[in-house]
């Protein structure tokens, strides 16, 4: 499951950069602080957690059954 | 005669640069004394940010705002944060692309959509502040357009100066009445 706490997001788009599946794309909606929050496309998300791990503001939560490690 | 202006917006809009330009136009190329201060620090990271300019025909002693004459608001949160000491009949100049919500008590509001003008008519969002600079020059009368252009030349590299002149002119020549902006 992929969740975002929009108000924590600073719109840096690092999550988009790390998502190898292009399940994230630049957002259009601004949060309360004026940042553009990325959009998530659930159906192509493989819950790899990369976005969760990289987010400097810990805005994203990915929940899945089995832990998997970064490949890069 | 002392005149006090405050320009507020969010980080990245070039608000401080407007302050700097006015200060140069007045103090370096104009005829009056001038002092420009700015909020500095954590606010500079995102959030609201502001600059204040005091203009006077005699030497300025106290440098901060005592009786605010003009507030220029380039974002809604900045307006909300910094409108407090503007009297109801104080001069209010807003970028109505971004500032929508102005309490009714203000009787002297001028609106100019500088962001929209910069984006649509000039093709560069970044020059919105220079459009606003032009509008301020016109409305406040603190500096002549010539002095303002000298300030622009002193501040920006030659290769972008034409674009900035154009932005300035769009602000300076903006017809507030035509746009029905004077409330």
């Amino acid at each position, binding site marked *: 499951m992929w969740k975002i706490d929009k108000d924590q997001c600073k719109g840096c788009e690092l999550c988009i950069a790390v998502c190898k599946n292009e399940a994230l794309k630049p957002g259009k909606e601004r949060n309360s602080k004026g940042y553009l929050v990325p959009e998530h496309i659930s159906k192509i998300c493989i819950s790899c957690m990369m976005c969760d791990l990289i987010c400097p503001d810990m805005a994203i939560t990915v929940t899945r059954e089995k832990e998997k490690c970064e490949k890069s | 005669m002392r005149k006090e202006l405050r320009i507020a917006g969010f980080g990245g809009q070039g608000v401080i640069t407007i302050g700097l330009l006015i200060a140069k136009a007045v103090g370096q190329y104009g*005829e*009056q004394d*001038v002092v420009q*201060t700015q909020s500095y620090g954590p606010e500079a990271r995102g959030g609201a940010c502001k600059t204040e300019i005091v203009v006077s025909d005699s030497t300025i*002693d106290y*440098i901060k705002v005592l009786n605010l004459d003009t507030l220029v608001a380039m974002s809604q949160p900045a307006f909300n944060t910094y409108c407090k000491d503007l009297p109801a009949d104080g001069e209010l100049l807003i970028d109505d692309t971004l500032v929508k919500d102005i309490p009714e008590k203000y009787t002297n509001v001028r609106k100019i959509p500088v962001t929209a003008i910069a984006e649509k008519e000039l093709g560069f969002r970044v020059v919105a502040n220079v459009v606003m600079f032009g509008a301020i020059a016109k409305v406040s009368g603190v500096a002549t357009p010539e002095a303002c252009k000298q300030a622009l030349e002193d501040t920006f590299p030659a290769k972008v100066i034409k674009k900035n002149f154009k932005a300035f002119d769009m602000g300076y020549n903006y017809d507030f009445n035509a746009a029905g902006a004077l409330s």
Partner: protein
Amino acid sequence: MNMQTRPKAIVIQGNQACVEGALLAGCTFFAGYPITPATEVAEVMAEKMPNTNAVFIQMEDELASMNALIGASWGGAKAMTATSGPGYSLMQEAIGYAAITETPCVIINVMRGGPSTGQPTMTSQQDVYQAKYGSHGDYEPIVLVPSSAQEALDLTIRAFNLSEKYLVPVSVLTDEVVGHTRERVVIPDAPDVYNRIAPPEGIDYKPFKGVDELGGVPYRGGFGEGHNICVDGQTHDGIGMRIGHLMEPSGNLVKRIMDKINNNIDDISDYELKCTEDAEVIVLSYGSTARVALRSVIDAREKGIKAGLIKLKTLFPFPDEMIREETNKAVRILVPECNAGKICNEVQRVVNIEVESLPKFGGAMHVPAEILSAIERS
């Protein structure tokens, strides 16, 4: 200001004005370490110096910066650094070294709110006593306090001149307000510049022997000119040899380096008076606060109160005599300052009536109404 005939000016921040002043005064060496709100001094230096014959270096810390000034100064440079509270604390040991070795150098302290990390982006005048007493031991530094960008320029030039004349470290205490405010600054064409005086040919030159004609200051020969100068932070005799174990000559050295300042207060002191002649209420102030005080005094006069202002531009050596004279008819003395109340103590030491301290906490400046109401209260 007559706006018609006013001289050509540029609009710059106080921090940049310090740079302009320094370069006009002949500064050829800058070593510093970034710190808010002084960093622009280094930044503008870094931009301007490489195109002159002046050298900029960012050192590893403030200890290194201040000590590098000492090396550069003996190498013949006119040396300057700029910092704020935390860095100023770190520089104190070397400032004492500069004092006892009579090493000319200029330190800009753009004061911010303290203590410690305190309020890095806010203004204060909390370091005024540190500027005088921050290093261990007895010494007598010169401390200047500009109140505007223009004075930042003027007093930086003056700092270099006094430093070269009296062979002493000079601190220029500006503050966040002076440092960051952009104002009109008139750049003087060719300001008076004073340089350390080389020993006349043929004398038996002793690098650390006070010379009467120079007000107790020694001649200052350069390195590499065959003087074989030994610079030592221990008490030393005229040729620099250690005498730390000898009481009388050690005492004489320390006395001399203090006397050369205290005996020349009239030359070193700088202040402005506004309406003090007939003033009953005297406001004594300095630095950016003095401009608020000026406004309050003008407002008070408009209300018919006999108020006056003493604005200090040289803070130390403290002008005891001048203050005694200028306040001898006053019934009240107010000292507003952006700290818990410091210079009010100096004034109290000097005068007999009770001095009223108007402290200011929290990194803000006074507003004119505050001082005015203090003037009105009686």
